[in-house]
């Protein structure tokens, strides 16, 4: 088994790390400000480097490097500023959706522009009735000739104030599961952006908000995938690109925490010795590393399987375990790093609280951890 990354993946990691260190790290404070315009210039840089289209084939403007490359890029960015890793993940869902279920016209219309960063797209499934409870949604899309009339309200949508096009889930039939995935552009009459949530990790860079659709007329040609088959379409994106992307974010956070914690422990002296001389702290450091290394292999393997052509449903257990494991590694490592810093652990200058907040966000985001447990446990029961 060759566990090495390819030369291209290594070079990609190097370039993304350099980008993150030189262009994101100096602006952390700026990105974390609560109010302000979304930093489009950073997104343009990310597009310039070709990071949006890593898992998009060349014919639609991407590089076709694959999902493992995408995960590495998300990991490297999240290691410095998880919020941008979240965007690289989130903005990759609509392209993924279209690649797997879109018509040729839809692909050609949207993907190249999404990859270039000219427009942004978000998945919008969650409603007040819940996120994981997809069948509980209440948004409707009534057929009227060759248009759908969409009514509903989506909440907790990341980047709601930034995206130009949304892939929404809406009821198109009588039965519980008659849900379709439809693309709606934000400039559609009746589409109204609403308030932004005050989440713990909220900042100008990471807006999460709601929008309402009131009698929005959207061409039937905007539906992605077969009628009433939207759940599979959306779930495919959430499981495939979404969860693997979420795993990448958590990996980056976990990695950052072990680096920050270890460096501090080497420098800080107490009782005349560096902290690393205290065995309890020394062991924490080793454990942090073990967590992120273990999580990394689970995550890379899942992404690698996608690149081998496996469909997300086929590898749903691997993907679920990867995200869950990486999320727990991120939480564990952040907590331990904070403890190592003693009273300084919660001081803003060390950046740990920001990383920890992002880790807390990631419990529920990108496919919640409990859904991961559901998936992996169900798969285990089937397996044996």
């Amino acid at each position, binding site marked *: 088994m060759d566990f090495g990354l390819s030369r291209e993946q290594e070079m990609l990691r190097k370039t993304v790390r350099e980008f993150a260190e030189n262009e994101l790290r100096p602006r952390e404070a700026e990105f974390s400000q609560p109010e302000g315009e979304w930093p489009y210039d950073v997104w343009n840089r990310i597009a310039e480097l070709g990071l949006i289209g890593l898992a998009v084939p060349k014919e639609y403007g991407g590089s076709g490097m694959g999902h493992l*490359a995408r995960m590495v890029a998300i990991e490297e960015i999240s290691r410095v500023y998880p919020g941008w890793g979240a965007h690289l993940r989130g903005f990759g869902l609509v392209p993924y959706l279209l690649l797997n279920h879109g018509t040729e016209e839809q692909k050609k219309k949207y993907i190249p522009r999404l990859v270039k960063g000219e427009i942004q797209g978000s998945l919008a499934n969650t409603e007040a009735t819940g996120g994981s409870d997809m069948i509980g949604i209440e948004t409707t899309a009534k057929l009227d000739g060759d248009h759908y009339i969409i009514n509903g309200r989506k909440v907790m949508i990341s980047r709601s104030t930034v995206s130009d096009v949304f892939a929404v889930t809406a009821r198109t039939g009588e039965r519980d599961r008659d849900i379709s995935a439809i693309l709606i552009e934000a400039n559609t009459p009746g589409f109204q952006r609403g308030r932004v949530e005050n989440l713990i990790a909220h900042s100008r860079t990471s807006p999460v908000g709601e929008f309402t659709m009131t009698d929005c007329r959207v061409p039937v040609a905007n539906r992605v995938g077969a009628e009433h088959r939207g759940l599979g379409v959306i779930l495919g994106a959430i499981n495939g690109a979404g969860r693997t992307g979420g795993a990448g974010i958590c990996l980056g956070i976990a990695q950052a925490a072990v680096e920050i914690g270890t460096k501090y422990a080497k420098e800080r002296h107490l009782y005349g010795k560096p902290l690393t001389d205290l065995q309890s702290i020394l062991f924490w450091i080793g454990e942090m590393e073990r967590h992120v290394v273990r999580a990394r292999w689970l995550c890379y393997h899942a992404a690698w399987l996608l690149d081998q052509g496996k469909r997300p449903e086929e590898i749903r257990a691997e993907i679920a375990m990867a995200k869950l494991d990486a999320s727990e590694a991120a939480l564990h490592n952040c907590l331990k790093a904070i403890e190592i810093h003693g009273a300084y652990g919660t001081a803003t200058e060390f950046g740990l609280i920001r990383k920890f907040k992002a880790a807390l966000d990631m419990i529920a985001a990108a496919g919640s951890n409990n859904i991961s447990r559901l998936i992996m446990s169900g798969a285990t029961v089937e397996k044996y």
Partner: protein
Amino acid sequence: MDIIVCIKQVPNPEHFSKITIDPQKGTIRREGIPAVVNPLDRHALEEALRIRERFSGKVTAISMGPPQAREALEEALAMGIDDAVLLCDRAFAGADTLATAYALAGAIKKLGKFDLVLCGNETVDGATGQVGPQVAELLGVGHVTYVNKVEFVDGESLIATRTIERGCLKVKVRLPALLAVVREINKFRLPTALSIIEATKKEIKTWTNKDIGAREETIGLSGSPTQVTGGFKLELKRKCEILDDSPEVMAKEAVEKLRELGAI
């Protein structure tokens, strides 16, 4: 405009504190230290790319080093240059700047006609800044070091602005010539996903001394007039001379000590 860029793979400066001297042999031990493209060489590569964008032509990078140095050439290709050559041969090993210059000049002559040779002004390891001017001498072309700006007059000459202490000199340069660049000249681009994929498709040529035909006594250890005879690691043990007296006395004593140490 056909440009050749000389690059070098060097130990990552962030890990310099791990480099040691072998106490018995007096040789420098740098195994296991991660390597990078010499930072100033990236500015040289960037400048070459910008000139190519303006005038069209070909950019070729060459590097003299062990087999591992091909990674540096891969990164140069990932920035977007056209071609890369690795000069790798036991005969080149142990070279000081003059012997290195002989090997590089030999390779450049073999590459054929060129308009410009670019290189970083110095490397982070040796930091001599000597190879550039010595290559120029062996090629019989003019050179300018510390170049922070290049302005083309026409296809045959350019004005190079070069840093000196407290100012600059403007130098009119006849092509072909060699320019050694400093950090202020440009901001270099990062490889993109697409350029990385294009780069891995390209083949890096490997040349030995047979390919360039340099006389054995001019290259490698035998071609090196200078030799390292030993070294020592700077001890960072502090003297901790604590003075406790009147301010005037302490200040006088401190200033005298600092002068002796060459600190002021």
